[in-house]
């Protein structure tokens, strides 16, 4: 990645007036340079957010399997005399496990995630006995409570990553099983989990199971969410079932009912436009999608919307290319570096 502004400045300002500021090139990519592991974790996370999976993977490789001695506090006793344990932030471990899957090696991701799940469970049972790993003094009851909550949450996050990897491998049934396992641990997210499971069954072609799950998701019991949120979810699920059955107008009606409850919901507007397309109204669909995209940038500048819009442009005319280019000024004005320009479909 080069810095065009720096180049311009260097070209136009005389050498004497230049100050040496730290730039990307001047920071060493090692512990001395980035000083703390948390900074590395942040850098790697940002690389992934910007879809630079290969770069992130290459830089992560330097850390091996995150068990090297120099990643532990005990190794740096001169800096951290009293601390013990690993310096690797948990989020970085999770990223380390997810990365292979993002570049196609799903099996390695699964292995790492299972390993991480096992570790979390071990720590959790230690905590429940009243101790933290590497620490000899027992935990106080308050600390134990906090630690237990923390590690339960971390275990849950690992399970979500597992399910995501399975979906990427198209092993939808196994992913549904993982979500099913989470139902007990996360009663507050019961409707949401049942809805995801239903969506995965629709992807498989299994309508009866999807409908059973969606109707279970409509039940009120432990959810703390409002009535409105529940209604919106019910309408969306019903809309997806109608899409499955090719009942485009009914699907539109369902999404529109949800839109009345949440008028700014961009997903709903997108789905309504997609149904319009399947009904055969190309120009109408384009009008609706353009309306959504230009309505309130930057939040409405969504890759998902642009991908759909550019597919319709390709169908509508031979001047699709110039229409796609017309979005560039808007994008340049509002979006950051991580925006996937591939969603514009420019060849």
């Amino acid at each position, binding site marked *: 990645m080069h810095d065009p502004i720096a180049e311009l400045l260097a070209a136009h300002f005389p050498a004497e007036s230049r100050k040496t500021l730290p730039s990307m090139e001047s920071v060493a990519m090692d512990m001395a340079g980035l000083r703390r592991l948390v900074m590395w974790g942040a850098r790697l*996370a940002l690389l992934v957010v910007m879809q630079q999976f290969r770069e992130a993977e290459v830089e992560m490789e330097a850390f091996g399997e995150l068990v090297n001695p120099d990643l532990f506090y005990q190794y740096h006793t001169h800096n951290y005399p009293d601390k013990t344990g690993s310096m690797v932030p948990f989020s970085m471990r999770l990223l380390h496990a997810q990365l292979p899957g993002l570049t196609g090696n799903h099996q390695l991701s699964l292995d790492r995630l299972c390993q991480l799940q096992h570790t979390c469970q071990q720590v959790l049972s230690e905590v429940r006995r009243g101790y933290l790993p590497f620490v000899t003094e027992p935990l106080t009851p308050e600390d134990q409570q906090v630690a237990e909550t923390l590690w339960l949450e971390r275990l849950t996050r690992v399970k*979500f990553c597992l399910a995501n990897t399975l979906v990427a491998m198209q092993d939808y049934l196994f992913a549904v099983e993982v979500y099913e396992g989470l139902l007990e641990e996360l009663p507050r997210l019961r409707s949401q989990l049942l809805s995801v499971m239903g969506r995965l069954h629709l992807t498989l072609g299994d309508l009866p199971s999807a409908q059973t799950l969606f109707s279970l998701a409509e039940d009120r019991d432990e959810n703390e969410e409002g009535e409105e949120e529940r209604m919106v979810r019910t309408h969306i699920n019903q809309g997806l079932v109608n899409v499955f059955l090719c009942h485009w107008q009914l699907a539109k009606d369902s999404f529109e009912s949800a839109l009345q409850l949440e008028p700014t919901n961009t997903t709903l507007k997108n789905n309504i436009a997609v149904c319009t397309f399947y009904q055969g109204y190309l120009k109408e669909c384009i009008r609706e999608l353009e309306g959504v995209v230009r309505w309130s940038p930057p939040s409405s500048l969504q890759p998902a919307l642009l991908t*759909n819009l550019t597919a319709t442009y390709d169908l*509508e005319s031979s001047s699709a290319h110039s229409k796609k280019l017309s979005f560039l000024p808007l994008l340049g004005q509002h979006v950051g570096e991580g925006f996937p320009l591939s969603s514009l479909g420019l060849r």
Partner: protein
Amino acid sequence: MEGSVPQQHLLGLKVMRLTKPMLSYAVPVLGEPWDMLGTTLEENLSQDIRSPRDLPACSTGETLRLPMSFGLIFLGETFNGFISVHNDSQDVAKDVAVKVELLTPSHRHLLLSEPPLPQLDPSACEERIISHEVKELGEHSLICTASYMVFATGEEMLLRKFFKFGVAKPLDVKTKFMNIEEDILLEVQIQNATPTHMFLDTVTFDPSAGFRAQDLNTIRTNNSEVSVFGKDNLLPPRNIRQHLYKLTPLGPLQTSGVVSNVQVGKMDIVWRSRFGERGRIQTGQLKATLPPLPQLKVTVVESPGTVSLERPFRITLRVHNGSGGPMRLRSVLEKHPGAGILWTGVTGKVHNELPAGGSMDMVVSLLPVLPGLQSFSPLLFVDVLSNQKKYHFNKLGQVFVEIQPPETLSSA
């Protein structure tokens, strides 16, 4: 999906296959609140509509995506397409007539043919949806023709585009037949030949006119019927499912000898795949080979299941004459060395004449001499009328021989 026609046309033709939409997919990268990035990652993810807003850690969203590629199409599915005719020039086109035909290996189908549009202005676009249930394998060609007149010059133009796609086989069906007396057991193996899961909506067997079929794929409990496959109707890619049917002929099919290539019926399979893509195929007539009918059939119609050692018992045999003519049988009660059950009674007895198709019952006495599960000794029938033709029966049946404890005698 475009053909290329190197001509300066006013109009353009585009076709897009309407495969079902897909759900959006996000890459959730989340941190913990005390991490360096704090809650920035969460906020960033919550803005992206590809991620489900109520479950940020999950990658499967609720936003629909239009299909990005043609994908695969299989026999039995429906080809749905979106065709658009657009005027990319500055001139007006008049009398625009669009025709869409599908050329399959053996047919030419007309999918769209409407009266010509009087006019298509610059930048205008007309769209239609075409649909065709795919009934043939192999290469299919979609031929789209637009004929129009350039208003400015009066020149008649013809724009033609070709789109080719192949149709593959979705299922591999194999059959196995097994004959049990007069009935035929049919096992149908269905294998999913597509790369995605299939949800089997219905799998039925339609018997042909000469047969009655019984579906043996359900388990009947007290008040309900449950499929043997359980609740799971999904067939993963490359997996096989076996369905079993019992076919009973509705009338005599054969007098004697082997009959080949008897049409027993066909399979009708309806399935759904990704997001509701529906498919249906019917196999051709399945053909079975029937074995020759037995000329003489002997079955045990009455027999105890358990008998006591060294206590004689009786069984009733039914002898059926399946040949074309009358029989006069002489029964020979054979003895096998080491047999556990011996015949008692008269051997070599000649019975009354048995007409063709008739049956007679025979009561025979037996004596068990060995304990445990024992088979009856062999039986031989000799037909006096037909040149001493012999019919040997080795495996008539079995009984279980118990050892009774000695009776307690009343005090003498």
